């Protein structure tokens, strides 16, 4: 039956494209829209629906992302409820189905910011949006062969973070703090998650320059505080005083490590990642040596903003250079020296961002290995 559904979908799209094309007085645009990028500006909308599609708000990180999306919507003079939330609960199928449902409901008049849950799901989501004439900006997940510039204006942008470099830098801070000798353990995220892999790779890169430091063990703690505490306790049993430093894949793991150390009355330097408020406090207190802030609030806001401003026609994505279509998000290092200042500037008073400064805080074009 799917071919019938597809036929109806295509018919709907062609009819709409035909009407739009007539309205713009551009003959042939309808046909061209069906076959890849168009040299003309895709249809824009006066007041598109703005939506964020993501896992859920339980995780503080995604909570920050979405609060950025809400801040952006409020900057348009709308209620934050104007932002439509598509929650995939970790299911790519639900992610795609929700997007298709919203495309049908809005008739394609949609500015969508999305993390597609896994990389392969990015293509069907983008294709569905392009076909419906909606504007989509992706965050984190996409395959390496999928590029915004292959889809004209409708696939606006992709932003991600490379964690290897920043994780290497925090590792160096840790390794310097322990005097370049001893043993470190690493507690990672869910083993198959890309950031988890990159953050461990960062540590391994740094270790090459510190021959007297041994990587005693690395185990996945699944980004979970309680699991991290248990694994750290087991590490302490196995290695005891051999552990002179701990490299954690993120802040929530770091909290568990600190509690496990506290239960034993041990004091070992640790570094974390993500720059959550509690971690920044702990950095200021000197309990964590360093963390990395990736500014999820800005990331969530700017992703929605890019899709929106493209959808209303404030800029034409295909006129922008490639580094404005695929780029790395910001990374800010937080160390005991600047933790308090950082907290005042970024966390206690969430800065009012200029949501039309799309690329100012970003970190260069994405490089593929």
């Amino acid at each position: 039956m799917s071919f019938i559904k597809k036929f109806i979908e295509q018919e709907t799209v062609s009819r709409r494209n035909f009407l739009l094309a007539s309205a713009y007085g551009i003959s042939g645009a309808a046909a061209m829209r069906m076959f890849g990028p168009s040299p003309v500006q895709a249809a824009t909308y006066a007041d598109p629906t703005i939506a964020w599609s993501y896992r859920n708000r339980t995780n503080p990180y995604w909570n920050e992302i979405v609060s950025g999306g809400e801040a952006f919507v409020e900057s348009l003079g709308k209620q934050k409820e104007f932002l439509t939330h598509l929650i995939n609960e970790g299911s790519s199928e639900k992610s795609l189905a929700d997007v298709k449902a919203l495309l049908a409901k809005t008739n394609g008049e949609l500015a969508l910011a999305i993390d597609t849950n896994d990389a392969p799901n990015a293509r069907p989501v983008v294709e569905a949006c392009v076909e419906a004439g909606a504007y989509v900006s992706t965050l984190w997940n996409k395959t390496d062969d999928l590029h915004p510039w292959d889809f004209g204006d409708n696939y606006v942008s992709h932003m991600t973070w490379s964690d290897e470099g920043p994780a290497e830098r925090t590792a160096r801070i840790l390794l310097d703090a322990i005097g370049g000798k001893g043993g470190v353990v690493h507690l990672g995220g869910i083993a198959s998650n890309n950031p988890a892999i990159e953050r461990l790779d960062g540590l391994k890169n740094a270790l090459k320059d510190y021959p007297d430091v041994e990587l005693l063990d690395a185990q996945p703690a699944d980004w979970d505080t309680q699991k991290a505490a248990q694994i750290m306790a087991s590490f302490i049993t196995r290695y005891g005083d051999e552990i002179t430093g701990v490299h954690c894949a993120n802040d929530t793991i770091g909290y568990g490590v600190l509690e496990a150390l506290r239960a034993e009355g041990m004091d070992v330097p640790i570094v974390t990642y993500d720059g959550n408020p509690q971690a920044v406090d702990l950095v200021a207190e000197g309990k964590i040596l360093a963390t990395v802030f990736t500014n999820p609030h800005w990331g969530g806001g700017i992703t929605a903003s890019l899709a929106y401003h493209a959808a209303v026609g404030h800029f034409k994505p295909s006129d922008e250079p490639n580094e404005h279509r695929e780029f790395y998000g910001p990374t800010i290092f937080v160390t005991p020296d600047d933790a308090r200042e950082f907290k005042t500037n970024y966390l206690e008073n969430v800065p009012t961002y200029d949501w039309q400064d799309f690329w100012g805080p970003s970190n260069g074009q994405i490089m593929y290995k």
Partner: protein
Amino acid sequence: MTDISAQTEALGGLLTRDRIVRWAPVLVLVALVLLFPFFEFLADLVEGKEHVYLLDSRFFSIRNGARIGIAATPALMVAVGATFIIIMGSIDLSMEGTISVCAVLFAFAFLGWGGTLASWAWLAIPLALVVGALLGFVNGMIHVRLKIPSFMASLAMGFVGTGLALLLTGGDRLRVEDELFRSLLTVRWLNFPIMCYVALAFLLLAWFIQSHTALGRNFYAVGGGEQLAQSSGLNVARVRIMGFTLAGIFFAVGALLAVGRIGIAETATGNNFMFVSITAVVVGGTALWGGIGGVWNTLVGVLIVNVINNGMVVIGLPPYVQDGVLGTLVILAVALSTNRKSVTFVK
């Protein structure tokens, strides 16, 4: 419970099939506790280090026992709550949501009413227990009055709980940093932190309820043969609702200990408790079809699961085989502790 059939046999008196099955979980636990040090011994042997078996073991030490204890106590409380339900032949999967709600409400109240146990904030502890009881009561009412299978009713209530906790916190985490409350983790008596003794006290309470109250005996009656219990005049619906309420209270105790352990209350506080507690109950020898087992089985089951988790890291098992090993050991433990002769069918 005495085993009459075992006593009548003179020679096989010590090693009847029944008795082996009954003590299988303990045997598994003892075997594991001896197995992990053996791997350490082998590792040191290969490296040529001097190693006296057990004596030089890092796993087989009081310090590590305390670490396993810290890891096990919140899960033990949750599993004890689930035990009552499973004895009745039902199942309760609402623990993750219940724990999150209890933890979050406890933290809100505790921080709001003074933030230290030395003030009125101590009232947050009974509040959390009441909230747990209430959630369990609602759970039981839905199961009994709406006649929804406990599996579905409790699973759904768990989701409601997680959602409620998220609504309350808005995704934030609450820090409970009161030194007095955190002494659950930081103060030790005889090498073990206070939270282990708190758990022990509640375990004894659970044992008392199980074997010295009418309610406890009714759990077995319902699990052993619900229709028989019903026709003997037992108000099964009431027993079920009380069982779920009691389980809710134990989930709340687990939540308090979990917060005491890491000093954070959040929506994620309840994560992973469902798997650990149900596994522990079953591994301990409490049968999923009801009527068999009890809280001591659950203690052994929780210890087995936590000894495995701790031991695998201590002997340096690669992370990618750990889940597989855990699953295999669970099947092994359940297979050993199930008396297949007494079970005609498994659903």
